[in-house]
């Protein structure tokens, strides 16, 4: 008789347990705090994330050469891939906590629930990176999504925040419906909710198999929603514009990392026998996503909306990694994994600067609000320039390393047209990122409200800057880490 709950299983989910406990602690601790001491909630959240990260680093060194640990009857996998994704998620959440403390004070929405919800979302994402069973994946996805909906609408008095939350919620719930239907069909085909079993059963089925195509397409449509790929991207610009800026930073990074980890698990571990089919689908979606994301970003005037479209274009590049992976090229997945790490730092860095534009009596989310930043705050302008160069993929920044591996994997597998197209769109991206640079360096100063920087933002900007430059200049250890993370997927 197989014992379902073993001690080792609980040890494997220790980081998640720790983060959950700290999230609950924040909810209690919040009652004890005076209004002006609310920043201490952020401190508790950071300590919790720190414990989680420390535990994960210990797992990383212990996992070594093996295939990883399968707990809870194969529903939960702790391998280097899961640990890698969870570390990025925790670091991204930690950076968002740092960015939030001062911003929430300015917005007058400094409630403890905010940090608790961030941590709960992080727990959902961590399970998403480890789940190898449809049930676990679905619950984890919903835990992440529900927290995101609430956080998007966190500014209850703001019309834009409400509207963004409703749109995000309705489209998100719709996508969950699609995803769930795909999962039910997959279960019907395989007779099990375990990804490894599903993969085996799919391989046994005769070749033209409409039922598994329908299952795959509905499932992938649900995931495309979550990662904001065209044609399921409509929620992105609205949710990004309306959400509190710190949450825009959060939903543009952490859920993307988690959703792509989920995506990799589904495609590589679950739907691997159908790789020819999903490769075709991915090529179409990736090209459409890059086209729309890059072209729509050109005309935006609101900077959060602009970053919404910029995120969509990055998702397009990430999807290209799957095209290479479908040809059995392991580097395709490695490229995605590196890109996610790089993207997390550079995007959060850029949002760190944007968040400073929000001051009393100034919303500061138009591109024009960055005008003349060079004369007002030269340090900020130079930081933003570095992050924008990285987002555009210019060496020696981290963004270049991310794009380089995607292009390399495409060329290795012979997808020359796609590689050329992707490089072409990188040029377009350079153009629209430089619109912000032009505003910062060449336009007149419109306002004189001083920029005040809190301690948290200082640390967050420091970390993102160092990582953006470090990965760009000395990428070897990070590439080695990514290779190590991808290894268990192809055993």
């Amino acid at each position: 008789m197989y014992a379902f709950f073993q001690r080792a299983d609980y040890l494997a989910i220790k980081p998640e347990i720790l983060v959950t406990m700290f999230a609950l602690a924040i909810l209690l601790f919040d009652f004890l705090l005076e209004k002006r001491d609310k920043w201490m909630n952020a401190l508790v959240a950071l300590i919790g994330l720190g414990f989680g990260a420390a535990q994960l680093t210990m797992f990383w060194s212990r996992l070594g050469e093996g295939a990883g640990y399968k707990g809870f009857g194969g529903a939960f996998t702790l391998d280097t891939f899961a640990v890698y994704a969870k570390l990025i998620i925790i670091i991204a959440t930690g950076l968002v906590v740092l960015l939030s403390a001062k911003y929430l004070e300015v917005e007058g929405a400094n409630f403890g629930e905010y940090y608790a919800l961030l941590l709960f979302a992080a727990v959902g994402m961590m399970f998403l990176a480890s789940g190898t069973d449809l049930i676990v994946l679905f619950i984890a996805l919903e835990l992440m999504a529900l927290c995101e909906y609430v956080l998007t609408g966190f500014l209850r008095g703001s019309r834009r925040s409400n509207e963004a939350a409703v749109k995000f919620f309705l489209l998100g719930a719709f996508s969950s419906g699609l995803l769930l239907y795909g999962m039910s069909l997959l279960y019907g085909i395989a007779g099990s909710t375990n990804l490894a079993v599903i993969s085996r059963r799919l391989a046994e089925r005769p070749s033209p198999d409409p039922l598994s195509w329908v299952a795959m397409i509905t499932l992938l449509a649900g995931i495309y929603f979550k990662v904001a790929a065209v044609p399921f991207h409509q929620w992105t610009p609205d949710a990004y514009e309306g959400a509190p800026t710190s949450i825009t930073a959060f939903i543009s990074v952490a859920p993307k990392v988690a959703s792509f980890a989920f995506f990799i698990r589904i495609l590589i571990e679950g739907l691997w026998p159908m790789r020819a089919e999903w490769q075709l689908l991915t090529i179409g979606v990736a090209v459409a996503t890059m086209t729309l994301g890059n072209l729509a970003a050109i005309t935006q005037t609101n900077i959060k909306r602009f970053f919404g479209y910029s995120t969509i274009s990055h998702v397009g590049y990430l999807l290209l990694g799957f095209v290479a992976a479908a040809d059995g090229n392991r580097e395709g997945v490695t490229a995605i994994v590196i890109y996610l790490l790089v993207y997390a730092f550079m995007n959060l860095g850029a949002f760190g600067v944007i968040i400073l534009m929000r001051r009393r009596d100034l919303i500061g989310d138009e591109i024009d609000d960055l005008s003349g930043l060079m004369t007002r705050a030269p340090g900020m302008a130079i930081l933003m320039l570095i992050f924008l160069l990285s987002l555009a993929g210019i060496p020696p920044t981290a963004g270049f390393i991310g794009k380089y591996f995607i292009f390399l994997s495409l060329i290795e597998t012979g997808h020359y047209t796609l590689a050329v197209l992707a490089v072409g769109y990188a040029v377009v991206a350079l153009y629209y990122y430089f619109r912000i640079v032009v505003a910062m360096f060449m336009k007149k100063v419109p306002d004189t409200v001083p920029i005040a920087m809190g301690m948290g933002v200082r640390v967050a900007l420091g970390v993102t800057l160092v990582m953006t430059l470090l990965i760009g200049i000395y990428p070897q250890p990070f590439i080695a880490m990514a290779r190590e993370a991808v290894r268990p997927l192809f055993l």
Partner: protein
Amino acid sequence: MIPLSHVLTLSVILFVIGAAGFVLRRNIITVFMCIELMLNAANLAFIAFSRYLGTLDGQLFVFFVIVVAAAEAAVGLAIIIALYRNRETLNIEDLDSMKL
């Protein structure tokens, strides 16, 4: 016993009604109900497969989906109430303060 194909057809019909309602309806609450219909269509498919295959995973999944749907209703209705307080409308067409 009712054959599997009948139940699956019903589930597809429910799913399509839900998806069509999501696209066509203008009232936020109705749209939300259409989403619930889609989730329940998936539940029906799970139960049918579970019965047909003789494994319990599907029925187990349905319980989790019901829990998630309840949580989603709680969060969703809270968000909708916050919206109504600020705007006094539940029509999706009125949600246009952000340009396309």
